[in-house]
């Protein structure tokens, strides 16, 4: 802390502002920096300890009870299978990631454009929003055969399926986000005759970003899961195919290894969305609930 004897003019100015204004925005930050860092460390540490403990218990139980690997493989067995089959797991991840990413981009892109259209043209919303809800109400596993019959069992079908999965959560969130503007703020924009375009660009769009990312978080993992499910139904590559194939061949360690790979990919996808959100929407972080 700076001694009050060595006051620079700028520090004096700052305190004049503080005195005038009542409280300082800077004062409270430094004091609990340390406790916050400790809290952050423990929020990582505790789940990590729990996961390690569960894995250790699992390993011990499998060894003590002498369970066969085709029934339940031990964590170490899964790890070694993962390592031995890394090439094949990586190769099969590529099409799954490609499908999920393409579907994610298309589905979310359409959802964003359509939500903007719906918010501005109420006739479009009234005509098409119920249709979107109906589409959402059809279970994916029921929709997949229809898509395969009409579109074949290629890349297109899988992308269409993951796009449909990605579409709805983002559409709903964006409709809410674009409408979540403060009526008084809207009044300020109207008082200077701001065009709809300016209201969208400078008010509705930034207001909706936290909602958009809420949608993206859901669809990032949903599109990965969707891509895997579609591969179950019809495919000869991909993580979904690996899961089904290793099940049929009673290669349980490989089944577990591919499940681990899938869940790691889902986590990475989710993490990427969170990271981009932190960069693009820093103001929504304060509203976030800490775990």
């Amino acid at each position, binding site marked *: 802390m700076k001694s009050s004897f060595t006051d620079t003019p700028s520090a004096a100015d700052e305190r004049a*502002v503080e005195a005038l204004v009542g409280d300082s*925005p800077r004062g409270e930050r430094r004091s609990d920096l340390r406790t916050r860092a400790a809290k952050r460390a423990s929020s990582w540490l505790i789940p990590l300890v729990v996961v390690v403990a569960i894995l250790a218990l699992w390993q011990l139980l499998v060894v003590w009870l002498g369970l066969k690997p085709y029934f339940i493989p031990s964590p170490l067995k899964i790890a070694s299978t993962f390592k031995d089959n890394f090439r094949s797991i990586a190769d099969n991840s590529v099409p799954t990631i490609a499908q999920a990413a393409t579907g994610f981009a298309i589905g979310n892109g359409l959802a964003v454009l359509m939500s903007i259209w719906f918010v501005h043209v109420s006739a479009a919303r009234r005509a098409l929003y119920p249709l979107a809800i109906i589409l959402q109400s059809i279970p994916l596993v029921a929709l997949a055969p229809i898509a395969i019959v009409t579109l074949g069992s290629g890349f297109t079908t899988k992308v269409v399926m993951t796009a449909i999965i990605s579409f709805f959560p983002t559409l709903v969130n964006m409709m809410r986000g674009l409408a979540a503007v403060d009526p008084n703020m809207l009044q300020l924009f109207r*008082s200077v*005759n701001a065009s709809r375009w300016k209201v969208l660009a*400078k*008010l509705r769009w930034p207001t909706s970003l936290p909602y958009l990312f809420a949608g993206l978080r859901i669809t990032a993992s949903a599109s990965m899961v969707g891509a895997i499910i579609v591969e179950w139904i019809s495919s000869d590559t991909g993580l979904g195919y690996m899961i089904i194939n290793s099940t049929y061949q009673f290669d349980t360690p490989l089944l577990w290894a591919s499940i681990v790979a899938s869940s790691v990919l889902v986590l990475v996808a989710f993490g990427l969305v969170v990271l981009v959100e932190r960069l693009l929407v820093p103001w929504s972080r304060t509203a976030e609930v800490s775990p």
Partner: protein
Amino acid sequence: MELADVGLSYPGRPPLRALEGVSISMQQGQFVSLIGPSGCGKSTLLRIVAGILDPTSGSVLVEGDSPITAQRAHRFGFVFQDPVLLPWRTVQENVELLTELVGLPANERRSRAKELLELVGLRGCEDFRPDQLSGGMRQRVSIARALALEPAILLMDEPFSALDEFQRELLNSELLRIWVERHCSVLFVTHHIEEAVFLSDTVMVMSPAPGRIIERVEVNLPRPRTDALRVSPEFLQLRRYLREVLIH
């Protein structure tokens, strides 16, 4: 500014009468408060003056023009109960919002915002974000924003009601200082008697719905008004009188 026999009723059976026969005349540079119980239509009246709502009877003239025309000419500055700042913009950028929307050149916007932030006592806070400020500081930003287009009339809708008593009194004095420096008129909605007396030239007392002006109280206390005034006998007497009018 002239309001003549303004009334507003919402259609229905029976029609819901929100305002009835409200006449107010306000001189350039005056500070006028509207006070009344909640739900009496104070805010509605403010919206009519601003041209956001149309009255169902009577007429409103702002410097000889209709409220809509006055709004288009940026003659109003708005301060709401909540500061309604944009969280992704810095303090400076928030003050620049309206000047940016009307297309003022960037250097002009910047120098105006700087000057206004200085005026409201926020020099050095230009680059903070709204969530780093206290409630009182945020309301200062919203006052600076309201002044950015150099309006003739400030319309303030219970701007200090979310603040604690100390912040409120501090901002009362600050508002008077700003009002004197900017030579604007203020139409100030409040439900706080002491605040109305301290700030105003004229206090308009409204009745419960349907809102009418039931009393017009001239506050002839000397200006500039300081905190010492709040405990002077004349002040307390006016306060007591308004209280009685409002309760009966």
